[in-house]
């Protein structure tokens, strides 16, 4: 055991409890070794703040995002309907997720199919916890004097207009937040969206994540922060490509906050 308290909806139901929020872990967060660390950082924060949450565990399935973006509407809607049956079965009202792709799909595309929930990204949840005084950022590793740049995930930023929540969190770190020349609405994609994560890129003269990593390297950061497991993979690969992994860390906003709060 890792010491984390992660009840499933089924376990909670068995004890007659109802969670305040469902943590939608997502496929990356469940299976990808790097993304699992982000998942655990989110759980540490939730545990520390005594947030009453649960996960679906084996009852969770892909939201269908990559299928839909790749044009497979059938598969998307099959996944959506199955997930909605599960979610509605547990009478879920509020969902938090660490993946902007899940976030977008659950928030925007599920309601018409019968799944109406309040859906927030984990940076929004953490922002709320800090604002409510439930989470204080001190005691842990300090980021004083470090330069952090934030890479906007397309499905959080342009797709859903969430630009400020992750930035407000980073500003709490006592670090220097530097913006890349292309940021917020003008942010450049990491190259993984639209199901590109699961295929080789089409023929070109460069990989998109290399182009984006160059943007990041220009501002000479110590940390590249992201809010998406796919972006994390792409930026990590980009940093390795320039052999900068010794100097630059690619971390999720949740990991930075958990480290700073000594969780």
């Amino acid at each position, binding site marked *: 055991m890792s010491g984390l308290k992660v009840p499933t909806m089924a376990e909670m139901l068995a004890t007659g409890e109802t969670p305040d929020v469902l943590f939608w872990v997502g496929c990356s967060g469940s299976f990808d070794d790097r993304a699992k660390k982000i998942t655990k950082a989110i759980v540490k924060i939730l545990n520390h703040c005594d947030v009453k949450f649960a996960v679906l565990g084996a009852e969770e399935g892909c939201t*269908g995002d990559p299928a839909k973006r790749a044009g497979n509407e059938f*598969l998307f809607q099959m996944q959506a309907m199955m997930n909605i049956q599960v979610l509605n079965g547990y009478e879920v009202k509020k969902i938090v997720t660490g993946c902007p792709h899940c976030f977008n799909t659950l928030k925007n595309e599920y309601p018409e199919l019968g799944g109406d929930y309040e859906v927030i990204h984990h940076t929004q949840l953490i922002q709320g916890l800090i604002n409510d005084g439930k989470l204080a950022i001190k005691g842990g590793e300090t980021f004083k004097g470090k330069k952090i740049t934030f890479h906007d995930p397309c499905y959080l930023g342009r797709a859903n207009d969430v630009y400020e929540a992750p930035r407000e969190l980073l500003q709490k770190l006592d670090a220097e937040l530097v913006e890349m020349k292309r940021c917020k609405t003008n942010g450049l994609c990491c190259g993984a969206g639209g199901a590109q994560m699961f295929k080789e890129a089409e023929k070109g003269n460069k990989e998109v994540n290399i182009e984006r990593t160059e943007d990041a390297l220009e501002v000479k950061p110590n940390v590249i922060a992201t809010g998406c497991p796919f972006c994390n993979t792409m930026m990590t690969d980009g940093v390795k490509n320039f052999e900068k992994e010794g100097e630059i860390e690619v971390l999720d906003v949740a990991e930075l906050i958990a480290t700073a709060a000594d969780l």
Partner: protein
Amino acid sequence: MIAIILFALLLIAGGGYFAMNVNKIRQNILLGRDIDRSDNKKERWKTMLLVAFGQKKMFQRPIPAILHFCLYAAFVITQIELIEIIVDGLSGQHRIFRDGLGGFYTFMVSFIEVLSVLAFVATFIFLLRRNVLKIPRFNMKEMAGWAKMDGNIILFAELLLVCFIFMMNGADEALYNQGASHYNTGESGSFGLTISQFIGPALFGGMDAHTLHIIERIGWWGHIIMVFGFLNYLPFSKHFHILLAFPNTYYSNLEKKGKFNNMEAVKKEVELMMDPTADPFAAPAPAEGEVQRFGAKDVTDLTWKNLLDAYTCTECGRCTSSCPANQTGKLLSPRKIMMDTRDRLEEVGNNIRKHGKDHDDGKSLLRDYISEEELWACTSCNACVQECPVNIDPLSIIVDLRRFLVMEESKAPSELTTMFTNIENNGAPWQFSQADRLNWRDEQ
């Protein structure tokens, strides 16, 4: 009298031909599938006012925005003078509004003159940007040939238009100085037009009244002929955006950009599959109306808004210059998607008018215009949608073409087919068992 008849004929012919071509475009746009954009009228007016009228999104790039604004303001305000020209032309009068408006008339025409000079300078800089500085987005592959020429024709026409305005006003000022203007023969002095009162005498000062009358008339007729020429060039040109920008922003997608539509036809089938009471051996319910294909193969499978987008596109290339796929050398260019859609739609529309509704020329938007390689390069990042100054959505066309490839032809890159299979079998895009989804909980 002959002049009045000639003018009336020009007005009828110019207006009529324009109306005919606009109607053709309207018919073409209505070939698209229906989509409901009749909701939320207040928000729609607001979007149109801000984005089209106020040019809000142009100002993402300040230099072209300011230059463009000069042209735009000159164009809009000049319409007032055009009304006078038309009334003058039909009545045989000269500067008919001057008596009634007095000082305000001088102010208006002066204002138009100042804007015209600004527009002239802006147009000149635009020509430099396209042809001398060779700004990359104006010199990409899809801009070769007609597209490049189209842009230059418009800019030259605008220069010429402004020249005629100053020929007209300048010569009139010179005539007025001599007390020989049509406006009020006998009176002399100046109209007081901010620019022409100087350049008129400077350019035409030494000429006799007869020559000046001819120059003034050349300016007047030249101007109005250019206006009608320009108007009738619009339906054949990317420049049609000056009109369609308004309806196109009104009918903008007001949802979050990340939200892709849920296909109704698919929803019905999936609901049937999920329904435990459905009889699997029942005969399928008879299809209501025409059976639609899934996704889009040709322009007629797209929505009318997609098609309106295509006619609104002025090929500025902001979408393509912000596209991550394009920047990294992939074949995809969102601007080309819009240009292809328009070109194919023109072709389909002409075919229908020539050969009847059910004519099949054996071609389609997919493959004959847009290749699979272009479509699979898209990351669906919405940068193109964000950038477009008139709210065009190239991504929605890309996704509908992908839907056809995947659902009608089962044609996707093999890795994506594997991803689909994984989701189907184990609920994740990778080959992990769904039962293992919570294993991370117990890992150190």
